[in-house]
């Protein structure tokens, strides 16, 4: 089958797959309300955009690559301030990396068959997890992009040593670390994967070159490029050298968070369950079981005599990554992506191997129809995840998502600002705990006078204040003070979490009058 796919046809198919991926990811980028984490990242990027300020925080927010890689998007769209940014502009960044990941599969050419690459590209395009998080302004899609680049260039650097691939491998590793410090898990898994591939190899001595004397200099070159790349980002382009040390110190923070995750504790079966079968109440079944089944076929193929060593390397790396990610108690659904990438590469080869093993056209037609139905189902789920159930808690990829109702609160505050005589100088006080504050700073970014307090007792007086937004615990204390002067309304922040909006009575009367 490999020979049947000409190079031109191969690129044509890849282009069609890329178009399908963009079609499933691009429309309505701003549909979903900003997640708590997205808003956090957006504000940090705003500081970089407006004032060139970025200082690595070893306790939170992961690495800086997301912010620096957002700069070109902002510049190209001529946005120079946080206020001028919008959700679509920010989410263009993960969209680009989530789509370009399909083209990046070309790095595996030679190590994987062309049909295997096409199947893998198709599965990335249609996977609900990949489609959903390609519209999520967090680090994950950038991380997975550089992880694919790392695995491909590492393999090439090992099997066909060259300075170019060594630098590419080091750069990818550096970008992975500059994106998420927890990339060390993948580095360790890949190193162990290489060793296991070499040990289990029968014909080629995979990885042998890397560990022999003459190639030590390449190993050091790769490491140097990786360290330099990450150092550039963590030091804010050498403006904050302490960031380099902090990036190493941060590993302790993430180790502790992984071991004692609090609210984000999930069982070891979480990621496999997420991909295999999810159903919440009367909601529909969500499944990417097709990918898991094909990945199983790919895993079996990896140990067949005719298969190349690369597939075995992917198998070992994926299994080890999945094991570590599953054993760490801290879990969020977007963290499934690094292991899911491995499953998809294996699945691509699995699908190609199944077709290769079929003897007649009838069998190929039957399996082709079944596969088409499975792929169509995946695409339907991806469309549902992105365009219909993007904020629905029954969607398993939705996690602590800001509810659509929250946008009504924002609209009400804007309406109050519009009828206010302060004309754009509306004074707003937010009195919420840290978990309830976000994503308010993103949505209130165009108001000049917004103050944030975590306790009612620190918020001062309320004369001249147009609106007060309070979490439930703070609203309890504020209520008596604001009674008679403010009209109050409930709004949903996240499932089970409410905010109370207090609007000054005179503004409220005007609002009702002019509506």
């Amino acid at each position: 089958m490999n020979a049947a796919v000409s190079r031109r046809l191969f690129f044509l198919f890849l282009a069609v797959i890329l178009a399908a991926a963009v079609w499933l990811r691009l429309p309505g980028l701003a549909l979903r309300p900003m997640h708590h984490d997205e808003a956090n990242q957006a504000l940090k990027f705003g500081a970089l955009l407006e004032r060139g300020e970025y200082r690595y925080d070893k306790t939170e927010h992961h690495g800086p690559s997301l912010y620096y890689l957002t700069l070109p998007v902002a510049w190209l769209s001529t946005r120079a301030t946080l206020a001028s940014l919008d959700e679509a502009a920010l989410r263009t960044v993960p969209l680009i990396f989530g789509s370009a990941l399909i083209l990046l599969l070309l790095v595996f050419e030679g190590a994987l068959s062309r049909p295997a690459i096409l199947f893998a590209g198709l599965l990335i395009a249609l996977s609900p997890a990949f489609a959903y998080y390609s519209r999520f302004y967090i680090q994950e899609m950038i991380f997975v992009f550089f992880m694919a680049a790392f695995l491909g260039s590492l393999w090439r650097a090992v099997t066909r040593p060259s300075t170019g691939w060594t630098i590419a491998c080091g750069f990818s590793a550096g970008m992975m670390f500059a994106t998420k410090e927890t990339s060390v898990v993948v580095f360790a898994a890949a190193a162990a994967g290489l060793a296991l591939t070499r040990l289990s190899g029968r014909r080629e001595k995979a990885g042998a070159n890397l560990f022999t004397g003459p190639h030590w200099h390449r190993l050091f070159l790769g490491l140097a490029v990786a360290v330099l790349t990450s150092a550039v980002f963590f030091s804010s382009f050498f403006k904050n050298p302490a960031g380099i040390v902090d990036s190493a110190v941060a590993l302790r923070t993430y180790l502790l968070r992984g071991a004692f995750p609090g609210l984000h504790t999930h069982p070891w079966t979480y990621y496999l369950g997420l991909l295999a079968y999810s159903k919440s109440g009367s909601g529909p079944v969500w499944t990417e079981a097709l990918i898991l089944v094909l990945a199983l076929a790919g895993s079996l193929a990896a140990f067949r005599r005719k298969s190349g060593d690369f597939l075995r390397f992917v198998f070992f790396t994926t299994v080890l990554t999945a094991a570590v990610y599953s054993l760490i108690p801290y879990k969020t659904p977007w963290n499934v992506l690094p292991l899911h990438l491995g499953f998809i590469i294996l699945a691509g080869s699995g699908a190609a191997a199944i077709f290769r093993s079929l003897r007649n056209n009838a069998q190929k037609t039957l399996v082709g129809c079944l596969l088409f139905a499975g792929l169509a189902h995946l695409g339907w789920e991806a469309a549902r995840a992105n365009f219909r159930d993007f904020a629905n808690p029954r969607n398993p990829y939705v996690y602590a998502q800001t509810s659509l109702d929250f946008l009504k609160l924002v609209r009400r505050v804007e309406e109050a600002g519009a009828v206010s005589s302060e004309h754009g100088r509306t004074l707003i006080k937010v009195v919420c705990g840290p978990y309830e504050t976000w994503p308010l700073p993103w949505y209130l970014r165009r108001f000049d006078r917004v103050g944030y307090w975590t306790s009612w007792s620190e918020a001062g007086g309320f004369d001249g204040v147009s609106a007060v937004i309070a979490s439930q615990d703070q609203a309890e204390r504020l209520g008596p003070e604001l009674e008679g002067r403010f009209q109050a309304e409930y709004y949903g922040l996240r499932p089970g979490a409410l905010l109370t909006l207090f609007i000054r009575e005179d503004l409220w009367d005007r609002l009702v009058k002019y509506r």
Partner: protein
Amino acid sequence: MKTAENKCFRMKKKTLAWGMALALPALASFGRPVFSQTDGLDQSKEELKIQLPKPMFVGTPRNIKTSNLENVTGKPRGPFFVPRGTRLLSLKKPVTSSDAQPVIGELSFVTDGEKSGEEGYFVELGPGRQWVEIDLHNESALAAIVVWHNHSQARVYRDVVVQVSNDKDFGSGVTTVFNNDHDNSSGLGIGKDKEYIETNEGRLVDARGARARYVRLYSSGNTSNDMNHYVEVEVYGTPVK
């Protein structure tokens, strides 16, 4: 010492007399399982007993005291008294809706007597303003209407309006017994009732004896999503002969 003993004895006698005075009427009312006597209050009334589903979310919502938000105490609702002979009229009665094809569940869930907040017990109507209407079959003097929207988590249903009428189309003779649409976004008039957080107690609406055959309940989405949910509606009253 003796004086003290006499005083103590006099107090015991007094306590005994008061105790008997209070206990006798209570003993007289023994054996009434459905409604308890409103001793010392209006003898024509009795306490409305409502069977409550178990609560679905841990922790009491915080107490927010403002003029237009319900004061959530976290304690059980106090007794509500209704005329003697009041009974549940709505059980298994037919339900119609502005959304004839619910997204989840059946309209019959509204009056099926099941009040659990778990999945599978609520009917989900489409987004925006929607209503359900219960046909009691007869004109009745309505004492109380209790509504449970989805109480699986802390959420607030918007623009809750409860109306009763003898006209099934609610074109005439409409009485509004509850309205918390304080900005008239539903177009049924500005309401002065308070927004409230759903709990397993449901929201008890005092129907104040309004006479009607049909009960219609409106809502316009909730704080978690734009959909409208009903686990159960109970209408209490006495049929008009």
